[in-house]
């Protein structure tokens, strides 16, 4: 494996990248979540940045991830909420937001996907810095508004890098959100600005589909670029994993939206109320059963067969 120095960082590209993955909007946009102390140069000068910066950046990334996953779950099951309206497919009956599908995704991704941190960390790092260095983000130079990015971004960028280099376990929802937001800005560069916190949540239904088309594409540029940062045989594994992730996000978000997750009481193993999908589909109108009166006989009256 060649051990050449990483390519020199182009400052503007590095600044563009947090915008592309949505961190900028979450941190300093309208209702920005990044505490002022992190952005305050005086504080930055007196603090070591680590570990406090890690603590400061975590809630920012968590809110960004939640917003992004809201955009995903309404893609799976739209409802009467604002995200579904932004997507352009509002629906009068309850959908993913009402069924708790975003919590389902975050819980699963952050606590139960036994995804090796040894992979999640470098993927996350690649999403934050690697791609910025790789040239994929160069188109960001043309993004509207980037020429006036606040100087504080350099600090934000460092905080992100610090988080990824720390020993903190990376919640998988962070790099997943980063991936979706990066793809969002690929299909619609204007998604760096707008309602909600995340570029992905700002997309129309067709644009979200286009983002998944990019992730699923067999030899996507994204896959190739990310692979640069892994030696073989990990290279092929990461490439394959991303293809898997593209499909799994759609399938798992849909499963969660149509499941009883949001109303299931783990202690009593009972439902607190009727699941959204049960009302939608008419599934077992009187709740769980021991059986149904659906036995209508044997086909052609035949109860056994022999050779």
């Amino acid at each position, binding site marked *: 494996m060649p051990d050449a120095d990483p390519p020199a960082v182009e400052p503007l590209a590095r600044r563009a990248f947090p915008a592309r993955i949505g961190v900028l909007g979450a941190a300093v946009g309208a209702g920005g979540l990044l505490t002022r102390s992190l952005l305050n140069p005086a504080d930055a000068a007196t603090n070591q940045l680590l570990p406090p910066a890690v603590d400061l950046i975590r809630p920012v990334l968590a809110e960004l991830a939640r917003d992004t996953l809201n955009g995903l779950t309404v893609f*799976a*099951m*739209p409802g009467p909420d604002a995200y579904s309206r932004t997507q352009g*497919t509002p629906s009068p009956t309850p959908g993913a937001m009402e069924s708790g599908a975003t919590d389902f995704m975050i819980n*699963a991704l952050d*606590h*139960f*996907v*036994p995804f090796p941190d*040894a*992979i999640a960390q470098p993927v996350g790092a690649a999403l934050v810095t690697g791609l910025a260095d790789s040239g994929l983000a160069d188109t960001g130079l043309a993004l509207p508004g980037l020429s006036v990015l606040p100087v504080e971004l350099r600090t934000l960028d460092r905080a992100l890098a610090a988080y990824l280099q720390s020993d903190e376990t990376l919640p998988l929802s962070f790099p997943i959100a980063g991936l979706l937001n990066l793809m969002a800005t690929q299909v619609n560069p204007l998604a760096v600005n707008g309602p909600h916190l995340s570029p992905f949540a700002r997309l129309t*239904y*067709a644009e979200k*589909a*286009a983002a*998944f*088309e990019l992730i*699923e594409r067999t030899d996507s540029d994204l896959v190739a670029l990310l692979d640069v940062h892994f030696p073989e045989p*990990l290279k092929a*594994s990461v490439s*394959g*994993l991303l*293809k*898997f992730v*593209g*499909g*799994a996000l*759609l*399938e798992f978000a*849909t*499963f*969660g*939206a*149509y*499941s*009883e*997750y949001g109303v*299931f009481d783990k202690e009593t*193993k009972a439902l607190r109320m009727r*699941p959204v*999908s049960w009302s*939608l*589909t*008419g*599934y077992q109108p009187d709740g*769980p*059963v*021991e*059986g*149904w*009166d*659906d*036995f*209508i006989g*044997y*086909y052609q009256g*035949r*109860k056994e*067969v022999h*050779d």
Partner: protein
Amino acid sequence: MRDVIVIGAGGGGPVVAKELAAKGLDVLLLEAGPRHAKPRDEWTTFEDDANNPLTGYFRPGPSDRSKPAWFREWPQNSFVWQLSGVGGTTQHFYGNYPRAYPGVFQGYDGADRNEYDVNHRFPFTYAEMVPYFEWVEATMPVMTAAMGHKEQTFFRGAETLGLPVQTTKTTLGPSYRPQENAILQPGGTAGKTSDKNLLNYPQATGCTFCGYCFQGCMRPNGAPRNQFAKRSTDNSYVPMALTANVWARGGRPIELITDAYVTRVHAERRHGVLTATGVTWRDNNSGAEHREDARVVVMSGGCTENPRLWFNSGLPNPNGWVGRGYTDHFFDWLIGSFDDSTGNPKGVGSSARLDFPPYGGLENVGLPPALSAFAGTLSDSGIRGQYGNGRGKTGPWDGPAGRVMGPELKELMAGGIDKLMTVLVITDDDVEPDNRVTLSALPADENGPIPKVTFKHRQRTARTVRNREFMARKAAELLRGAGAKKVYRIDWAPLILHVQSSMRMGASEQNSVVNPRGETRAVKRLFVADNSALSNALGGPNPTLTSQALATRTAEKIFATYFGGDPWVRSESPVVSTDPRVSVRLGQLGL
């Protein structure tokens, strides 16, 4: 020193354990996952609680559900539906017990003999297998499935295809029929009432038509474990193995240890021959390692775990076939939308099928909402109306194949879950060396390097692709014939749930891991007895019966070869797994 250690209490291991326990051998059965001894306390009827592959009680993972599931690498859009726990994947199966098609066995001389996976046939004849089929069919017992409204809907469609009804156990040609299934058919009030107060055992016996096969069978309420309707091995073979002293003369109950993850098979050279000597397992809860020796070791961990264990044990792989030749029936999925109720999803998950040798088969499948929605979005063809991911085939279904997603899915589901009927396309797929299990380059877990399951699903053989397209068209025609107003083809990404042949038995030393007796070619006293030992994809029939018949045959070979005993299948009569002596003894054991 045990006589036999069996690794894995899924669909295959308990068969060997029960058969050899009946012969008085000292058998240790090790299961990596949970015991599930008290299903009424542990299980529900809910899809996420049961079937979430990360957090559900039916997942590949330890008993402690606060701990993550076991991670496996799938380097493509796919889903490998593994389960740990006593019963393995039979815990969520539908109990379908069709026999393998005769055309996949050595010596078949039918007119279509050249149309099967001719390079990977079973190394013995169908006639030799029949007594083992019959033994398992009698043990379970296998019966002709009762019919609910969703079966009636399926048959209405099948009747339009110009095919005969199969009235034999053996599939002789294209035909349709009720499933032959390992379900106790409804008795008493079962299937005749929805009043739960009237559905307690023994007022109700057999299948109550609850529709929860995929969440685990624990009905009728109050029945002994071996009288639950669905004959998953936790309800059939395992209870028999634990009580072998009461129903078999000279029988000896097995010892079952759960949360016991086998990390290594030990072997040493004896008289110049590499010979299995025992295993090491790790306790999921304490992390403690245990080692025990045995005269014979049987691998029954499944198509994904057996190769992993082989590699992690450092066992030789001279022809390179360990983990290769993995078959999955290259499933596809069609959804029909109806104006009237189809009966979905009441009753056994699937009680009707259509067989079409040498192409494969079809079966109806009933699913609750979340699994239905999941099944509608698992695709290799993008999102209908948005992108096709380079595929998106058109045909006798409506529009291009692909995910039914978002607003379209919601509209479909809002029409009513009982207005849908789904058909599973089961392809007779070829054994292909590049569809395989290897060790992953990703970090190891507590049990060692993890398996990687690779399917080159866009490079399947021409025969496999032809078979799948043929059966997908038949499925669409069947749904139209049944009255579907709209038919969707999903073009599933690999849903690896019927698994076969990754440690395949074969006549040739060049392309098999297991010899025709079930013993591994590379290591003496090491046998494989589960779906992974199957020689091929069986032509398409669901694999459990054939796998258990082969495991029964392998148990005989073990007994005859290493314990000086005689085979019994041709000379004795099987005891049925519902035997009241088993029930009484389970009660005494608090099971």
